[in-house]
């Protein structure tokens, strides 16, 4: 089955991101795939490339990137939730007159419409909240 996962939890604040990763990593072994991970609300912080945990703790931003490498899933970030939290790519930073950005490949800024499209084209949608 194809899965869409929605992540509401900020990294290191709750178990949400860890639970979602654990779930996503278990899917292929059971014949399933994760098609899309959608980061919403405080979950958008998972997409910040500035995340720098101590070396003996999981690197969540890297873990999501690795998930895309191994499973080919999309990593979609709600643009409205991200911008107001200071998470943005180069294009949005320029548009708003900023000089720095902290989001890039393999994460993509998208609208909530993209979440609906993903959920509709997936067999299952599972939410991981704080």
């Amino acid at each position: 089955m194809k899965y869409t996962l929605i992540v509401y939890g900020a990294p290191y604040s709750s178990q949400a991101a860890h639970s979602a990763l654990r779930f996503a990593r278990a899917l292929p072994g059971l014949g399933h795939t994760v098609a899309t991970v959608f980061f919403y609300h405080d979950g958008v912080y998972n997409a910040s490339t500035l995340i720098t945990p101590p070396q003996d703790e999981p690197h969540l931003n890297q873990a999501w990137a690795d998930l895309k490498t191994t499973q080919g899933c999309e990593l979609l970030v709600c643009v409205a939730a991200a911008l107001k939290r200071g998470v943005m790519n180069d294009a949005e930073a320029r548009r708003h007159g900023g000089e720095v950005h902290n989001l890039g490949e393999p994460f993509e800024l998208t609208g909530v419409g993209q979440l609906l499209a993903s959920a509709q084209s997936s067999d299952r949608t599972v939410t991981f909240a704080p």
Partner: protein
Amino acid sequence: MTLHILNRSAFSSATPDDALRAAVPGDALVLVEDGVYCALDARWCASLPLDVAVYVLSEDLEARGLGARTDARVQTVTVDDFVELTATHSQSISWF
């Protein structure tokens, strides 16, 4: 059939009671993260409907040192079992 995914403790939140009120016969409920504490709450477990299967994620139980202390009504499952529960139920609701 709906799979209810619950990550709140019944000792500190009313959400687990809300989830039970929303569950209908044939639904299942899986306790994850701090939701595993519900499996130790005699009051909450006594209110479980007989026709709703209740599971608890072993990895989250073990992480909290609660391995062998769950109510008899609650069945321990692995992460793989949790994934399969989402596959065998047509939809899921995450309670938080």
